[in-house]
């Protein structure tokens, strides 16, 4: 596979190999037809969606978003996590996980970089928010909302610092380095006194606003405003991620994921785009961490374990690697299941670990398989090909002469 292999070891086999290649390639169309069949209801739904006019898509989207915003008020009985857990807070958790999954999807799904220490960026964001707002911290204090962009910047910087040495290497080195890094951040939070170890930071800041009853609007018990804030951020991040996807950036990422060497050969500065993916993913992770810290109001070193990191990976994989809508779904699901079905909450790690294995083995496109659209105006072009009579290719013309 690798182009860095030495001279071909088996002289005389080239023709046979080419024939085999060809056979393999010819086989593909039929298998892909099966694959399309397998995608089931979602696949069909997805096709319908793609065929819809833009306006109609927007209408549907607005309706979905409206329902999403209304969820904490509607508190639909079957969906609700009550009586075990407060539903608006559960929604907030789901939104944070969804945000995390969308961020991690940039790294894993788009660029194909397995980051097993994503929790580290989440932790960095949490600590940024905590150390700049909590009265327990000796640092200067800033209003909470400022910590969101700051968390992005800090996490991105750390992402770049970590990415530069490791992203030059093969993907699986990255996986283990990030795994180690996730653990190291936790140990450093224990060892460095300013990060206050298990004691942690209390009374992390919150957005301003006071309710009539003297309780802050963004109290840690009031899930609805936190959910709305996170949902809004999630939607913005989704739109931006969509912009990136349908640009040279997204194409470069997917090209790297598909075949890094070929991408490099096609003029993609692969290293640069990998660092970008890593940094942007880290930024989203950092922001999620800051949101989480704000809502919980308390940050210490205990929750940033690698196990949670792997739950994040499971969220991305569950939804479908590379698919941001899937990531939202996967993230929300990973947060939702233990909160809704408290009886099986204890088994969640086992369940999601098994899900990781089974999905990868039997359904590697995840629960919501969807292909990335990588051209800003691609739909128009494809429509032209489908509808208009295809022009005669130049070469064919030549042959007739």
């Amino acid at each position, binding site marked *: 596979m690798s182009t860095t292999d030495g001279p071909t070891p088996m002289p005389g086999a080239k023709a046979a190999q080419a024939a085999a290649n060809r056979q393999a390639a010819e086989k593909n169309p039929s298998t892909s037809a099966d694959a399309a069949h397998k995608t089931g209801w979602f696949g069909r739904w997805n096709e319908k969606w793609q065929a819809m006019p833009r306006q109609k898509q927007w209408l549907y989207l607005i309706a979905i978003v409206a329902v999403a915003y209304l969820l904490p008020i509607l508190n639909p009985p079957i969906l609700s996590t009550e009586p075990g857990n407060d539903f608006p807070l559960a929604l907030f958790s789901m939104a944070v996980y969804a945000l995390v999954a969308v961020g991690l999807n940039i790294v894993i799904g788009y660029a194909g970089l397995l980051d097993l220490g994503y929790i580290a960026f989440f932790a960095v964001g949490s600590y940024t928010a905590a150390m700049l707002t909590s009265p327990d911290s000796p640092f200067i204090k800033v209003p909470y909302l400022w910590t969101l962009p700051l968390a992005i910047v800090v996490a991105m910087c750390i992402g770049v610092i970590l990415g530069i040495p490791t992203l030059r290497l093969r993907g699986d080195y990255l996986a283990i380095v990030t795994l180690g890094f996730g653990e190291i951040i936790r140990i450093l939070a224990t060892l460095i006194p300013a990060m206050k170890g298990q004691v942690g930071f209390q009374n992390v800041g919150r957005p301003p606003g006071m309710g009539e009853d003297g309780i802050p609007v963004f109290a840690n018990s009031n899930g609805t405003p936190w959910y709305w804030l996170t949902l809004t951020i999630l939607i913005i991040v989704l739109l931006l991620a969509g912009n990136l996807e349908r640009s040279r950036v997204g*194409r470069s990422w997917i090209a790297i994921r598909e075949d890094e060497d*070929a991408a490099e050969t096609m003029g993609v500065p692969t290293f640069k785009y990998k660092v970008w993916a890593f940094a942007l993913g880290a930024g989203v992770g950092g922001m999620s961490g800051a949101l989480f810290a704000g809502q919980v109001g308390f940050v210490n070193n205990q929750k940033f374990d690698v196990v949670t990191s792997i739950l994040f990976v499971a969220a991305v994989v569950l939804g479908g690697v590379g698919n941001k809508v899937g990531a939202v779904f996967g993230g929300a699901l990973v947060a939702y299941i233990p909160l809704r079905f408290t009886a099986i909450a204890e088994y969640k790690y086992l369940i999601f670990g098994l899900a990781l294995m089974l999905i990868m083995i039997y359904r590697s496109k995840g629960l919501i398989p969807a292909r990335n659209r990588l*051209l800003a105006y691609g739909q128009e072009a494809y429509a032209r090909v489908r509808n208009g009579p295809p022009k005669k290719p130049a070469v064919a013309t030549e042959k007739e002469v």
Partner: protein
Amino acid sequence: MGAHSESVPVSENAGGESPIELIEPMEVTEAVADAAAPEREIDVAVGDDLVEVKNLTVKFGGLVALDNVSFTIKRGEILGLIGPNGAGKTTCFNAMTGVYKPTSGQVLLEGGLLNGMKQHKITRAGLARTFQNIRLFGEMTALENVAVGLDARHKTSVVGALLRLPRHKAEERSAIERGMALLEFVGIAEHAGSLARNLSYGSQRRLEIARALATDPKLLCLDEPAAGFNPAEKEDLMALIRTIRNDGYTVLLIEHDMKLVMGVTDRIVVLEFGKKIADDVPSVIREDPKVVSAYLGEPEDDFA
């Protein structure tokens, strides 16, 4: 071959290396080429040295895969690089395109040194390639594959793409136009929306060529583009390669199939055991005793 005709490059100096006749399809081709690479300079002299390979040596451990090989590629020609298996063709190719670091020697493109440059920079400098074993981006459509190649000339930054700044939009629009034009050029426009991995083998090879052309190369390197093709497909491919050349591109062709090489190239460099043993026009190469002996005993070869 006889029925075949060639369109003319836009270049006024055309006709340096190979006889050119003016015929009808030229207009189509010209339009396509224009659309595919509107900023490309094609009014340059055919016959200048485009690429110089100087004393290129590649060693793997103790094994000398390429030994002090020198040749030039002239602007506007189709140069064939041939040799028996293990002669070092692909090694030479990989050393030129930056996959391997040559042990010694130089590769110059328009006088500029390519050695030590990152691969993507070499591509941007004007050297594009295809792969012997097709390496498309399987989960992308044909059009998206070509767009990746076109991106080599795009200038949108990550922030620009994030915020959909005007340059990004303009480049996206032009990517669609140029991408479709390129797909038309190689004859697979109707498959623009198909995933690359679902294309037929022949279309995949054509798509690879389109993707490489999309980087707007000065030199297009084709690594055994006819591998796995039947004779009819090979004919088509030869026609395509000629059209590409006539559009003003320079082509380096590594090929195993002697008939194809002899039929399409303007000049041929022959390697054996990592050394250059011949460098001449096809008709001379065909008679060269060294070449003939190098190829003797190659049972599967249809050299004749």
